[in-house]
């Protein structure tokens, strides 16, 4: 199977301090991969790099011919202005952006697609609700509906099930499995290891440095977790410049 994402000695971070340090490896086309690790391990940072919001400090990301804008991305804390007067339908319809762009009209067929997406996250009847009136779980369902419409080959979910109840998590996980069946590449930052074991074939255990990466059962061992927890979260203000050699391009 070909690689969808390839990390080449990738270092991402802030103010020259690495948050993801020297990551090498590949995500296969159609993989369903969990990214786990303690808080501050660099999961969100890695995703920002994948979707192109954060430029690498060193190394690079190859995206297998997919532009960063074509990657569907659900950030951990979406910068959504909940007081903005917009309803669920319009918000979900924004997922059609890549097909409609700035000016494309939304026709009858598109309206059916939007309705179907809203239905598959169980929000039928909420179409004309203002987003400010949604609960946390309903909000997340709405954002998943928008992801559905984005119809992306690569989908990146940053802690999608945090503060979400069991029923909603299960419904949304079903969508993730559906994406996997449709051969899309899905990356999700996760904290619930039972959910990871039950649903994600691949796992990357990150603690700034990659600790382990591979089949989930082999990655999620007690030994690996102990190593991951040893990571020091704080940046060292006196750190010297990193001297790991850049590989030849």
């Amino acid at each position: 199977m070909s690689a969808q994402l390839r990390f080449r000695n990738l270092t991402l971070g802030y103010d020259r301090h690495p948050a993801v340090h020297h990551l090498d490896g590949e995500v296969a086309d159609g993989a369903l991969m969990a990214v786990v690790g303690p808080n501050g391990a660099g999961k969100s940072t890695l995703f920002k790099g994948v979707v192109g919001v954060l430029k690498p400090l060193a190394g690079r990301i190859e995206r297998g011919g997919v532009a960063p804008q074509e990657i569907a991305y659900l950030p951990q804390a979406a910068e959504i202005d909940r007081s903005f007067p917009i309803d669920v339908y319009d918000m979900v319809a924004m997922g059609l952006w890549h097909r409609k762009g700035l000016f494309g009209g939304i026709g009858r067929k598109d309206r059916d697609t939007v309705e179907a997406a809203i239905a598959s996250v169980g929000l039928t009847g909420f179409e004309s609700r203002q987003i400010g009136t949604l609960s946390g779980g309903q909000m997340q369902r709405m954002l998943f509906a928008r992801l559905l419409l984005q119809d992306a080959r690569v989908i990146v979910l940053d802690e999608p099930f945090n503060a979400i109840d069991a029923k909603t998590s299960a419904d949304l996980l079903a969508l993730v499995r559906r994406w996997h069946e449709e051969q899309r590449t899905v990356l999700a930052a996760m904290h619930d290891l039972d959910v990871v074991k039950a649903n994600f074939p691949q796992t990357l255990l990150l603690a700034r440095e990659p600790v382990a990466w591979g089949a989930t059962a082999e990655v999620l061992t007690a030994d690996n977790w102990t190593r991951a927890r040893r990571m020091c979260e704080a940046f060292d203000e006196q750190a010297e410049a990193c001297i790991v050699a850049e590989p030849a391009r």
Partner: protein
Amino acid sequence: MIYDALIAPFAEFEFMRRALVGSFALSFGAAPIGVFLMLRRMSLIGDAMAHAILPGAAVGFLLFGLSLFALAGGGLIAGFVIAVGAGLIARATELKEDASLAAFFLISLALGVTIVSMKGSNVDLLHFLFGSVLAVDDAALFLIVGLTSVSLVILALIWRPLVLECVDPGFLRSVSGAGGPVHLAFLALVVMNLVGGFQALGTLLAVGIMMLPAVASRFWARDITGMVAVAVGIAAFSGFTGLLISYHASLPSGPAIILVAGGLYAFSVVFGRAGGLLWQAMPRRHLEA
């Protein structure tokens, strides 16, 4: 009687008709911009921008005298430079946009007052600051209508990304690079409408026709299309009523228009159907589900 009060002033006097058309054009151009400024929590940005325009108009005045197009051209250039400069600095550094805009407009204002005082008298400065809608001639009217029409067209073109940039900027960034250009285009629209407005209302009160109807509209509509419609309606009604009051009571027209808009704002705060104080004070029984 009603004819005398409401229609006759416009039927009899050309300057009243021009003032009416001018204020209607400004209503259509500026009020929707005001709605977006309000929703983006940038309500005071219009004020800052209005000050920022002054040195451009003053340079135009210095070079070409009281020529309409020199004033407007200078104002547009100064406004665009400041909007783009502040926008770029906000995006390239940690400084938030309101902070960089505050720095820019204060420098700009000081520069403007200096330039005006080098040549003109205080009377000229007063004209900049307060304008005169009744002194709008054909050329000024064309300028106002032209600027506001272009503004409406551009707003229609950038409507979708502008809404998206307001509600979920992270999503827009992740699907498109349009966020930056759209934001700058929006600031340019603010400048254009203020320049159009300062012919008639002066730099200070031009902000009034932009913001007051917009802020009031929030009390009548719950979605953005409704707010824009209500804001335009309030602005146009304020223009019409304000001109009549100024005519019958011999009051200065610009402040009269803005005061009517202010009155409608106060009315909306109390009686507005969407969250007005009165409706909050008399809650109806809650629903079953």
